């Protein structure tokens, strides 16, 4: 693992979350290096979004700690974390439906800009950056899926975060839309933003992420560089089922 | 004041009264559990049902306990129609709008009743109204005992319907996961309407049980329904056992506080419980955490 010199911006330390009898996240640990893209992958129901909800303050861990920029943030409410610089997008997009695109982003921009003129300027800049500048005045609930994803991203960027949690931001996009949005995401690291992304679109994970964590049934079962993880038999089993890794090896041998 | 001779009947009466509250609360909690809104028209329904039972007796000589079999289906149909053709379409699927629409209906119904029947209090006279049964250590009023029994019968019927009929299963499915139920082909609008109808039928039965010993005027429904709100919140929104147990508890509390504090302050006691529960444990005793 490269770059052990710098302290990770985000450290999730053996975090556990129970829902009644269900163990959704089981002593999971991960870390995200500053200004790098870290991916969190795993089969459906693995607990990835639950983990994000805990990092962003929407859920409290049943056990374990979360540290951001060296400080313990476990259990802090979402708005306080947003002010610290942690932004998240939602897996099921949550636009302010009745407001325009610009008004949506404005809400985020207002976090660090009290005055309306300043906030508007910031919002417009963000809008331009994600490529929505020709739809400033469209009502958010009339956008296409791709538009809504960009809006979700734009809103999160408007709060000027240092850590951006992207929850399946590529889901529902067709290949050309994915191709358009990937460079936007990659460019964010250049602006000083650390990204942790939950993704199912493997091609994007391969091309974007520098470090990957694999979550299955609430536990981290593998981590490493994307190519390494993709070849890991434990990971293959988690996605394709018991014995799949052996079957694959056997079929390759022929 | 604290002698058992006075306390025990007070508690028992509280339980019996609580049973009737339970019936009203059952309707409310059922509607909340499935439609996820509080039916603000519930009180107006009760008032209307009380008047219906009153006129059934006065005009047609139908005994209240017999009227149950007439009014329960009637109010089921009324409730079904109200939800299917007014509340549902008017709300456009928005919870907040549904609240407002039920509020509007409540205001309309109550004031129509006020207009038609004015604020005068009416009562009916049935021969068994003041009869009591001797339980050995105390005497209990016949209507109250009958009421208690009927409530449990109704609760049982409801439980049977919910657990074993197709409609009941559909209702439980919609209550748990509306989108999934819709995708599975369940007609959600119909289920909502059936639930509303069941809730209204409960209210009609409660009215028939109340009328032998209670007075009738347009504002009675309101008084009952605010107690019912308290019960539903205490027992847990959407929980049937919660409604029953909460109702019995509140019945006893009301009886005892009436004994010690007098009528109006007793009412405030209920409200204070209500507000405290909402603030401290909104999910109630048996409700799912929001």
């Amino acid at each position, binding site marked *: 693992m490269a770059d052990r010199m710098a302290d990770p911006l985000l450290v999730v330390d053996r975090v556990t979350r129970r829902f009644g009898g269900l163990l959704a996240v089981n002593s999971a640990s991960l870390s995200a290096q500053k200004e790098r893209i870290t991916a969190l992958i795993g089969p459906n129901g693995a607990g990835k979004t639950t983990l994000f909800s805990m990092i962003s303050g*929407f859920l409290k861990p049943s056990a374990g700690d979360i540290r951001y920029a060296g400080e313990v943030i476990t259990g802090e*409410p*979402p*708005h306080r974390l*947003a002010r610290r610089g942690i932004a998240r997008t*939602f897996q099921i997009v*949550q*636009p*302010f*439906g009745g*407001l325009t695109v610009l*008004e949506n982003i404005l*809400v*985020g921009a*207002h*976090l660090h800009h009290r*005055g*309306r003129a300043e906030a508007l300027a910031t919002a417009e800049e963000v809008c331009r950056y994600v*490529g929505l500048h020709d739809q400033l005045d469209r009502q958010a609930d*009339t*956008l296409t899926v791709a*538009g809504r994803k960009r809006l979700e991203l734009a*809103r*999160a960027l408007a*709060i000027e975060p240092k850590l951006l949690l992207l929850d399946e931001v590529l889901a529902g*996009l067709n290949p050309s*839309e994915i191709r*358009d*949005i990937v460079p936007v995401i990659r460019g964010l690291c250049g602006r000083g933003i650390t990204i942790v992304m939950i993704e199912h679109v493997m091609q994007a994970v391969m091309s974007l992420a520098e470090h990957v964590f694999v979550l299955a049934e609430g536990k981290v079962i593998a981590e490493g560089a994307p190519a390494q993880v993709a070849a890991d038999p434990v990971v293959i089993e988690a996605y394709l089922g018991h014995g799949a890794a052996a079957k694959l090896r056997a079929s390759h041998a022929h | 004041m604290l002698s058992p001779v006075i306390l025990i009947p007070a508690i028992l009466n509280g339980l019996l009264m609580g049973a009737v509250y339970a019936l009203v609360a059952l309707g409310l909690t059922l509607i909340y559990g499935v439609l*996820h809104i509080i039916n*603000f028209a519930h009180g107006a329904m009760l008032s209307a049902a009380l008047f219906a039972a009153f006129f059934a007796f006065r005009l047609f000589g139908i005994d209240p306990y017999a009227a149950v079999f007439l009014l329960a289906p009637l109010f089921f149909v009324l409730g079904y129609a109200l939800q299917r053709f*007014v509340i549902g*379409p*008017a*709300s*456009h699927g928005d*919870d*907040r*709008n549904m*609240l*407002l*629409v039920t*509020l*509007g209906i409540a*205001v*309309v119904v109550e*004031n129509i009743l*006020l*207009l038609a029947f004015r604020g005068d209090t009416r009562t009916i006279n049935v021969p068994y109204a003041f009869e009591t049964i001797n339980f050995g250590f105390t005497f209990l009023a016949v209507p109250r005992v009958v009421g208690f029994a009927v409530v449990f019968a109704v609760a049982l019927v409801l439980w049977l319907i919910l657990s074993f009929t197709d409609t009941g299963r559909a209702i439980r499915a919609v209550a748990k996961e509306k989108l999934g139920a819709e995708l599975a082909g369940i007609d959600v609008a119909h289920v909502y309407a059936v639930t509303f109808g069941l809730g209204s039928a409960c209210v009609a039965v409660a009215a028939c049980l109340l009328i032998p010993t209670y007075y009738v005027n347009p504002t009675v429904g309101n008084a009952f329904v*605010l107690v019912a*709100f308290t019960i539903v*919140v205490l027992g847990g929104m959407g929980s049937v056992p919660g409604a029953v147990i909460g109702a019995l508890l509140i019945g006893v509390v009301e009886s005892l506080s009436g004994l010690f504090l007098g009528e109006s302050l007793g009412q*405030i006691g209920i*409200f204070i419980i*209500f*507000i405290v529960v*909402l*603030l*401290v444990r*909104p999910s109630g005793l048996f409700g799912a955490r929001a």
Partner: protein
Amino acid sequence: MRGFIPIVVVVAVLASVPLVIHSNVTLNFLVVALMIALAGQGWNILGGYAGQYSFGHAAFFGTGAYVTAILQVRYGVNAWIGFGAGIVCGAALGGVIGALTFRSGLRGSYFALVTLAFAEVLRIIASVAPITGAGVGTLIHLDLGARAFQFQSRAVFYWIILGLVTLSLVVARLIKQSRFGAWLIAVRENEDAAKALGVDTSSVKTTAMIISGAMTAAAGCFYAQYFLFVDSGIAYGTWISIEALLTPIIGGVGTVFGPLLGALAVRLLGEGAKLVTGDVPGLDLILYGAVLVLVIWFTPRGLIGGCAQVRGWFARRGRPAVPFINEAGHG
């Protein structure tokens, strides 16, 4: 600054009314309508902007009315100071209810219930507590003169309530173009998304409730001074809870002028019904309930929203709205 021009125009027009119309009946009608508009604007800040629907705004109205009346009648406090005290008490009550309910995370149905319960508790207490005169109510002695906030001329009352309404319009406009307003609306549209963007939702909602309480209490204070009599049914009755929510919804929930428009419409409706059917008690409430249901059904955005809908329809002139396929190239 541009946003305030409509307010200036409307207020100027309304202010000139007593110069032209001298009928006491008309002036009285307008005074009451404006008072309801003020109460409704209070509701609008909480319900229209923040999306928290209160079913018990009578709690604030009645508190304003009683505080004003009781301070004068039992403690000899000057009427104007009493007025101010009533507003402060309304604000404080808003802060208390807000802090209690929003910190517990209560929303939607629960919030409506709690506000209803608070209003009812206050009504019951007021109907039995000696300090409010219990069932008999509180009567403010006639003492015409500016010092006692009582005026012979209805026109003066009219201008005073108009002044208060103007203040409420200005506050509503200011909120709308401020950060606070953007946050309120965000909370209304999607509370979780707002939290993720750094909005302290309970604090924002509580502040809205304080402002809301102050405005509706002001309407109550005015009631006491204008009618000189308050009892528990008037102060904390369902009638004002209903009118306070009805007027913004009819006029246009979440708009600046909605409550004003709605109040005029609702009151006109009430008066019109009385003309047609005679003074039947409760008829106006029946109408209000029916109108509430009809408005939500057919024009949920109220009169102002309805106009926008019609304008939009004319602008498109039957042309279909932009289809999604146009978005193909650029998401």
